């Protein structure tokens, strides 16, 4: 396994969960990411912001190697999760995705019951033996996703029958049921109304005690509300990254200032 040295001064304060060094990504001939260097810190929420097509989703999908299945996608550079190269020869993407869960833009519960939705992951990874253990995992996961109280009487109803916000929390419960370290969220609230969005945002604050969260968002207000660190992507490169408060109030870069003040994007 390849180990990447961590920036010493930062790891004293916060342990770095994911390090990215010189990451380049191509879709066919088109380069989508240019030499990205980014550290994701443990138990914090990191926001990725930037205009459409800036590569923030591409970067997110590199973290759990979801880009592997895209035809013609080529990834160069190093991404290390807890110091281990995610592209290492002995890393199975299937196993990696159990450690790095993902929540998608559009709520996408399986067309199965609520219970089945949450139990599916633990079952395929063999995390539970028997129904009782699975029940336990389902309950805990739904509780952590703040959904249990709402669905405890309809665990056997189809997950697709829940409201949009509930579906998205079901997807979060499904992701945390396999006990990941990191949760990636790709614009998780873009299909939700403000109340459901607020609910998810509260949840993120609760979840970061256990998990490291990376969220792609188009809403700068959301980034400011939920995250401790923010990275601004533009044209496939990280323009600036830092503490959220600092980045929004006193950005170093001109382009960052233009973007957060709404001059482009």
């Amino acid at each position, binding site marked *: 396994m390849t180990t990447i040295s961590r920036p010493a001064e930062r790891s004293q304060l916060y342990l770095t969960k994911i390090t990215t060094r010189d990451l380049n990504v191509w879709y066919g001939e088109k380069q989508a990411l240019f030499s990205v260097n980014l550290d994701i810190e443990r138990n914090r929420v990191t926001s990725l912001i930037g205009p459409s097509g800036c590569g923030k989703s591409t970067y997110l999908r590199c973290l759990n190697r979801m880009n592997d299945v895209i035809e013609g996608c080529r990834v160069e550079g190093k991404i290390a999760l807890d110091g281990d190269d995610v592209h290492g020869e002995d890393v199975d993407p299937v196993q990696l995705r159990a450690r790095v869960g993902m929540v998608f833009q559009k709520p996408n519960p399986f*067309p199965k019951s609520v219970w089945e939705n949450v139990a599916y992951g633990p079952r395929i990874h063999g995390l539970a033996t028997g129904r009782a253990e699975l029940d336990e995992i389902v309950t805990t996961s739904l509780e952590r996703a703040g959904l249990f109280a709402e669905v405890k009487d309809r665990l056997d109803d189809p997950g697709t029958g829940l409201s949009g916000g509930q579906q998205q929390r079901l997807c979060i419960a499904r992701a945390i049921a396999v006990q990941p370290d990191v949760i990636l969220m790709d614009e998780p609230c873009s299909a939700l109304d403000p109340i459901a969005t607020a609910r998810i945002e509260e949840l993120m604050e609760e979840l970061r005690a256990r998990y490291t969260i990376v969220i792609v968002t188009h809403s700068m207000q959301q980034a400011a509300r939920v995250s401790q660190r923010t990275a601004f992507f533009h044209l496939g490169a990280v323009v600036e990254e830092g503490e959220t408060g600092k980045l929004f109030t006193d950005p170093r870069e001109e382009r960052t200032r233009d973007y957060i003040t709404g001059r482009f994007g």
Partner: protein
Amino acid sequence: MTSGGVHSGEAARRRLRKRHAAERRFRLYGLAAIGLALGALVTLLGTVVVRGLPAFFGYEVTLDLHLDAARLDPQGGRRPGDLGRGDYGRVVKDALRALFPEVKGRRERRRLHALVSSGAAFDLRERVLAEPDLVGSTIALAVPLSDDADLFFKGGVDAEAAEADRRLSDAQITWLRALQSEGRVARRFWTRFFRAGDSREPELAGIWGALVGSLWTLGVTLLLSFPLGVAAAVYLEEFAPKGRLTDFIEVNINNLAAVPSIVFGLLGLAVFLNLSGLPRSAPLVGGLVLALMTLPTVIIASRSSIMAVPPGIREAAMGIGASPIQVVGHHVLPLALPGILTGTILGMARALGETAPLLMIGMVAFIVDVPTGPTAPATVLPVQVYLWADSPERAFVAKTSGAILVLLAFLVAMNLAAVLLRSRFERRW
């Protein structure tokens, strides 16, 4: 509303009227098209039903058969071997002659015998073999009339026509009327049609042989084309690297779906019969040929329904660490199954109605026995329809339509099964 706008005023109203009129016209065209199609369908089905229903009924005559031990069991041991060789035809003829003692002369007698089906002797033999104790007694047995006599009672013979222009002579008509007035003739539901194989005698011919042949053939077709087609579709859609080779395969599959079916028959003849030496006229080979023909349909339908599964489901499964096989097996296939089933049933329905390729591999043979397995000689329903339509006896006209009705019933049953399966597997997302 503001005055003077382009959307108010007389001109605007005129434009609107024109649009509404066009809409009404278009709706009428649609209705007319549906009406025409329905009319054609009703005419077609109506004709087949009216023509085919007589095939399900037939006339039997009850004869007092004297089971003369001297004729049936000269050895006197009542052993099945001896009883099986008895002259049952004689017994039937004797019974007829006893009813009409006035008939003399070989020609007249032969005409009298011709009223009863040659199947009567077989029925009697069966009965005696089942109950050997009957030998020596006299029993009343309802036996089938010959096809011409049957047709007479069904109103298919014009007694007013010149004697030379009809299949029954004046004398035969007189005898039939006499039999009827004695209450010996009865109309029965013709179960024989549903339990017998083919025969040269229309009154003895049945559809069961062809139905069983079709079942075996379609069984082989389904067993081959469904798993192969679905596996091919899954591989092409989910795993195959996109490239020239995949494109080439795709184009060829699409072309294969459009190849005339008789070409598959020729291929089957060359490969399965001549090269591999598989048995002729066998459902196994028929099924293989039809599977080749159905495969492209199944693959295309499966691919499109796999493609229609929302990508979000795949991402969701992948995102929590399902392996590619688990993504397909647990999520994509269950969701694609209704569409795959529909495609398969469509392919199978086409295979059920297919005649041409089967002619090439010898399934057009005249086969009396009900097939007992996939390698036994057999024919199938549409080929049976073709064979009967080609037969000169007039009674086969009804049999042909009757066979078509059975074929249609088979088809409806298959589609019904598909609908039931669909609704079982259909899930919304």
